[in-house]
């Protein structure tokens, strides 16, 4: 037990004040003062209050109130402070890195970064805007969420309230297992197996809703489209949304559930009256967390989504190809030959970072504000104050 800098606290030293440096509580407390006397008085009495029989050897022995080993405290405290600080430093460095690389390119940009769909970074006349990337990223993630959340709620309710235990547990594990499948496997599976299956769905949707530009199918049977990747993303975020929903549904207080049942509600009515209102905020935040994951998904998107030919006009349809922030950067990682070009991609990455951060913060905010046990909203508090008897 030696410390390299020689400041190691004494491990049960013979003399409390021996180690110098800053004053410690053990040093400040005088162990021979009134406290020690008090303890001696206490030990002089038996349980029934009568003075103890004289035991000179035992009662005269000084109590050992010197410092016990605080080495673990100090080590762990240092470790904890260090870890906390390290995280802040890493975040700061990443931020500085992104900004430092992005700002010069943004300064040279000859078009609107936020509103242009052109992406021609580098060269003598750099032009790049994120509008198309932003659109594809957001629309694919939102569709993924719209597909995943109802299914997740269904699975969570099935597992918590409908399935017998011997079925519920395997189903829950199967859903959790979806989270363990690597993105690259989802990408390959989606491209080779799942996308062809989706073609009839795409044809059906575009036939029924094709008059809306969003659902207008371009010529050809391309299946590497935004809709396909949305469905695959939905499968990918299903586990996290299901897990959180399941957790929150299971926590619905039995008093609320029995209250609904005692009024003569069926199981579904009980779920609607007691379980869903209780779980609303939890499910909302679960959906946001899923959205955050879908926004940043790279490999699966990159493999499945076809990059449109540069000569074609931009198409807003979800049955067209496109590129998200993440897939754009990953697709072009080999071309980062000049700092200007790299800066443009970094700037796009920065936007993705900000969007994901905002979505995750919103999720956290919702959880913190309305989680069970959190403080109640203002209007409830006022009502309580006005209450009598």
């Amino acid at each position: 037990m030696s410390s390299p800098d020689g400041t190691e606290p004494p491990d049960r030293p013979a003399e409390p004040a021996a180690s110098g440096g800053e004053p410690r509580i053990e040093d400040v407390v005088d162990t021979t003062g009134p406290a020690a006397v008090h303890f001696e008085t206490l030990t002089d009495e038996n349980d029934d209050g009568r003075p103890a029989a004289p035991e000179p050897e035992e009662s005269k022995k000084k109590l050992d109130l010197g410092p016990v080993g605080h080495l673990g405290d100090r080590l762990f405290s240092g470790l904890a402070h260090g870890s906390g600080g390290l995280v802040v430093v890493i975040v700061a460095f990443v931020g500085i890195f992104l900004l430092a690389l992005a700002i010069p390119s943004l300064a040279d940009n000859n078009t609107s970064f936020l509103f242009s769909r052109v992406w021609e970074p580098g060269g003598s006349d750099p032009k790049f805007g994120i509008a198309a990337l932003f659109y594809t990223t957001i629309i694919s993630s939102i569709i993924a969420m719209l597909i995943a959340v109802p299914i997740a709620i269904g699975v969570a309710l099935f597992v918590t309230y409908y399935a017998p235990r011997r079925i519920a547990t395997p189903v829950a594990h199967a859903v959790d297992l979806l989270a363990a499948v690597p993105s690259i496997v989802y990408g390959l599976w989606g491209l080779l197996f799942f996308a062809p299956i989706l073609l009839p769905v795409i044809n059906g949707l575009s036939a029924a809703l094709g008059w809306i530009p969003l659902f207008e199918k371009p010529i050809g049977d391309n299946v590497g489209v935004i809709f396909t990747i949305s469905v695959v993303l939905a499968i990918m975020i299903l586990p996290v949304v299901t897990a959180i929903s399941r957790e929150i549904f299971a926590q619905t207080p039995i008093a609320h559930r029995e209250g609904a049942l005692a009024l003569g509600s069926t199981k579904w009515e009980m779920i609607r009256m007691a379980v869903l209102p209780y779980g609303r905020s939890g499910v909302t935040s679960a959906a946001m967390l899923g959205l955050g994951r879908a926004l940043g998904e790279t490999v699966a998107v990159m493999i499945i989504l076809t990059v449109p030919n540069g000569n074609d006009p931009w198409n807003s349809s979800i049955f067209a190809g496109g590129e998200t922030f993440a897939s754009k950067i990953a697709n072009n990682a080999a071309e980062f030959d000049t700092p200007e070009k790299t800066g443009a991609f970094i700037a796009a990455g920065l936007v993705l970072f900000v969007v994901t951060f905002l979505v995750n913060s919103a999720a956290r905010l919702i959880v913190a504000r309305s989680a069970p046990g959190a403080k109640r909203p203002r209007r409830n508090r006022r009502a309580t104050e006005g209450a009598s008897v």
Partner: protein
Amino acid sequence: MAKRIEVSGLNVYYGDFKAVEDVSMTIEPRSVTAFIGPSGCGKSTYLRTLNRMHEVIPGARVEGKVLLDQQDLYATGVDPVAVRRVVGMVFQRPNPFPTMSIFDNVASGLKLNGVKDRKKLTEVVEASLKGANLWNEVKDRLDKPGAGLSGGQQQRLCIARAIAVEPEVILMDEPCSALDPISTLAIEDLIEKLKDKFTVVIVTHNMQQAARVSDQTAFFNLAATGKPGRLIEMAATKQIFSNPTEKATEDYITGRFG
């Protein structure tokens, strides 16, 4: 409105564990019947069999007959959901639906029965809140959350919610045990009033309460821990508290055990 309950040879189980054994009793309409007895003697368990809430717990089952107006609640073809619409229940802890307003809490049972007409709902909500002695305290804030009321008000809100669907019987499982004495008094006054229209069955740990509010009292006890609870004696409240037939009853009400 009120109906007679006749129970015969009722055994109640949690899985393999027999919690209540061989209970037979008759509960008169338009009266208040109190169940008393030491903790764990099965009186709450037994109460929950009267509206088939017992079977909500996995593994729980019942043997025997519970006749409500000559109809066996446990006969095949009887829907427990329908039973609970006829036999309402108020729980130990007030449990208004936290996300619903006071109005919606009271109207929730009616909405389950398919009542949509706003005018009818408003009428019933007002009548039920008046019936639960709560109208004057909440009439100005019916749209506020029910969870914002005090404990005693919440419990009366739950009673209003229970009587809004006009049940035949109201079961109360220690309705005052989470309340202060003044709120308790308000609930006791209310119970007195409820028996004009409903058959009321109340489980209570408070013997003064049983003596104050009930017409009939049933004393439950168990031979030993792990043994099933049994109905020891049931009679007019006055007789139970002044001249019980059984020694165990006398010991319990005089505070010698339990």
